[in-house]
């Protein structure tokens, strides 16, 4: 079996690629997830003036190919080499992995902000009023009512965004990051063994499917108070 031989010869490299792909996606999504909540709040409740730069940022990210964004940061930083060197940041931008994580974080943050904004705006006003009525401070209302609800509502869409990010992370191979796609291209260019693409496809699908399952488990936990049996006497 040619397929099995290909796997037997190349599995260490492929596994290494999977690790890099997961690192790219995980770091990018995590950094974006840390920046998204305050931005989403601003986007949902901020004044028009405060929202303007945020809207432009989101529109730009959504309106340009992520490959172009990656080139803009990775190659574009070369134009500011002297300035970056004096700031001590040149070492960071010279590494394609760092640039890829930075771009994925900036990109995903725009999408996550919009998704979370939708979640925040979908929280029932009565819940917020109830919180205020029992004397919760603004911050407590956000922490205990708005965000828990918003995340539960936005959860499936956030999962989709992370899957899109994982697929987009394959683009890092174009700037010489050896993620799963990069390893696959490297193996193909040396052996012209086409079956390596089959294994790359299998691994990407396996990652996507495992992620979907994990995400659903988490979703069930997030909404466990809503899926249970209706208490007796309550209709």
């Amino acid at each position, binding site marked *: 079996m040619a397929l099995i031989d290909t796997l037997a010869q190349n599995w260490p490299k492929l596994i290494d690629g999977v690790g890099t792909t997961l690192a790219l996606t995980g770091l990018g999504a995590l950094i974006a997830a840390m920046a998204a909540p305050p931005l989403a709040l601003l986007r949902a409740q901020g004044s028009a003036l405060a929202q303007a730069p945020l809207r432009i940022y989101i*529109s*730009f990210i*959504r*309106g*340009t*190919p*992520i*490959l*172009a*964004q990656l*080139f*803009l940061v990775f*190659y*574009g*930083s*070369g*134009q*500011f080499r002297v300035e970056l060197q004096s700031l001590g940041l040149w070492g960071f931008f010279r590494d394609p992995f760092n640039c890829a994580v930075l771009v994925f974080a900036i990109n995903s943050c725009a999408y996550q902000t919009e998704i979370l904004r939708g979640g925040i705006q979908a929280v029932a006003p009565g819940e917020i009023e109830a919180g205020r009525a029992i004397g919760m401070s603004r911050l407590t209302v956000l922490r205990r009512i708005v965000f828990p609800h918003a995340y539960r509502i936005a959860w499936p869409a956030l999962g989709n965004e992370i*899957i899109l990010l994982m*697929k*987009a*992370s*394959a*683009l890092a*191979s*174009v700037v010489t990051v050896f993620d799963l*796609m990069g390893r*696959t*291209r490297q193996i*193909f260019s040396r052996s*012209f063994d*086409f079956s390596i*693409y089959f294994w*790359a*496809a299998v691994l*990407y*699908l396996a990652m*996507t*499917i495992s992620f979907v399952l994990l995400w659903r488990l988490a979703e069930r936990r997030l909404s466990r108070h809503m899926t249970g049996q209706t208490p007796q006497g309550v209709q």
Partner: protein
Amino acid sequence: MFELFSYGPLGWGDEILAGLWVTLRLAVTTLPVGLLIGFAVAGLSLSHNRGLRALGVGYTTLMRGLPEILTLFIVYNGVGLLLNRAMAMLSPEAAPVEFSPFAAGVVALALVFAAFAAEVLRGAFLAVPEGQIMAGRAIGMTPRQIFWRIKLPQLWRFALPGMGNLWLNLLKDTALVSVIALDDLMRATKVAVGVTKQPFTFYLVACLIYWLLCLVSELGLSRLEQRANRGVRRA
């Protein structure tokens, strides 16, 4: 600064516009091909036959789970290999044929577009209210008449928002073909960067052009949506 983007031998304006032309041609050629395959796949997913339905669902799951760039390489390298193997069998002394990057781009992008379009179309078909179909049956329409006179005319209205998003994604995904050496906007920019050593300036201009394309598309799409919904009563 401006002479960099002027026409003629000194500036890169004409090269970038030529690249933009390739990008637009690629997107406009892919759209009908992708729609056609998308209709076929949607038909499979809605079929009453279990095997056909599994085929449709399998296709959309597979194509939506793989990175676009992996699909592109599989099509570009795989079809190239197949063509050459077929040619070698037919006439051993023939020179190896080159699978055109443009054709590979159209095929790969159309395959991806079709998977997402099939889901949008499936949703749109299911969005036609049951009562209208029963009304059609009540006045003695055949299933075929119901399809042509009730379902299909409304499909456009239900599918338009989803299709609009797919069109924007397609525009951005065309940037990937620069990786297989097709002279689109992205690659023309890369060539200009190689000569001028001004990566940030040029990639920023490329980003701005993509952004403009998306903004213009969004404007056109909202016009189309208004027109598509002109006969709908608003509550």
